[in-house]
């Protein structure tokens, strides 16, 4: 089936099987390996991307559902070489160790801050509870989201 997706701002037309998952389309067809496959069972959030501004787990969506929509992956977040404030905060606050969960964590954190620019610690933990991290123990991730919130609010 022919689909046309606006992927990180660029239009891309591909011929895909309806059963192709969005994550496989992104990684294998479009060559965007930023979104990761962790669990493949819609629990870990490593595959999180935005579709029309909404954070989704791309292992639980078919690529055909994204036909005609805007898809944003971690690769599309930095503008002209300038990191998005959430990316910068993850770097500054040491919010990653192995980095496997990071692309998904950043996309979920971005969604949280768009909907709630000044979250409490509880709201941050609730906002990223669809994303698992096996390394950091989450504290530095929470710190990074707080830092990004104050930077974006400033």
């Amino acid at each position, binding site marked *: 089936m022919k689909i046309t997706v606006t992927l990180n701002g660029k239009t891309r037309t591909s011929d895909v099987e309806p059963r192709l998952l969005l994550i496989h389309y992104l990684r294998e067809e479009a060559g965007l390996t930023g979104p990761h496959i962790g669990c493949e069972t*819609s629990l870990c959030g490593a595959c999180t991307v935005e579709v029309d501004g909404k954070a989704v787990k791309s292992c639980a969506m078919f690529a055909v559902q994204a036909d005609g929509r805007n898809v944003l992956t971690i690769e599309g977040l930095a503008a002209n070489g300038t990191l998005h404030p959430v990316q910068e905060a993850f770097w500054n606050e040491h919010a990653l160790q192995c980095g496997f969960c990071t692309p998904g964590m950043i996309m979920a954190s971005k969604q949280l801050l768009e909907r709630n620019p000044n979250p409490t610690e509880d709201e941050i933990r609730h906002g990223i509870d669809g994303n698992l991290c096996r390394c950091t123990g989450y504290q530095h991730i929470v710190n990074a989201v707080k830092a990004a919130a104050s930077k974006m609010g400033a």
Partner: protein
Amino acid sequence: MIAQNFDYTAPASLAEALSLLASGEAKPLAGGMSLIPMMKLRLAAPDQVVDLGRIPELNYIRHDGGRVRIGATATHHQVATSTTVRSQCPLLAATAAQIGDVQVRNMGTIGGSVAHADPAADYPAALLALGAEVTVANAGGSRTLSIEDFLVDTFTTALEPGEIITEISVPAGGGSGCHYQKMLQPASGFAIVGIAVQVTASGGVIASARVGVTGLTGKAFRAHGVEAALVGKSAAGIAEAVAGIADGVDANSDIHASAGYRCQMARVHAGRAVAAALAKA
């Protein structure tokens, strides 16, 4: 994990969707949060999938005729954040906000959740407590059922082949005396037990109560006995009034909670849910 291949259509109107589904062979796809994982595991292997996600007339939330009417494809996020739902039936908004995680709430829909009839799903508890109605349609017409009649058993509803849910409605003016309390399974967020409570009260004494229970048994249910026992009680009498919530039920048992533990947790969380609802009434 790759699903069996299928034909995919994404109709733009309800009429078109109903005609594609009329044969009863095709499977409707809404948010995909239950169906796609099942297709990946090949627990479901439909030959035809009809995506309801591009039908504007199925996606709405409005207040009319004394009811809050929610189109089948309204997402959990839309329900949780709708000012209409929050003001007219806050119990439903509070329940939607506790489903899964943000990614699941962005995609998953109220129609999909109710049609799936997962015994651990959150919505049924609130919909039972609120007296919801479910409108279903096929190519020949539509009918409206109470949520009690709609939910038949575990993963089983009153939907006939070719029928889809078009709307779920609840009475408006639900009032602030409500609370949804769940003990969740930490990995998925599904309810081990979930208790939805709507009460009215005057001077700290309960005048009426409606209690919906999910997760405890194969099918969500209304705890009529507990509702009656709560009338006339103040905060001090809640624990005794809810003590019978699991009496005579055939409780679920799985790796997350044994039947006995679930029953005990139902009593504990019912007490907390009623206390919280009464405090807000």
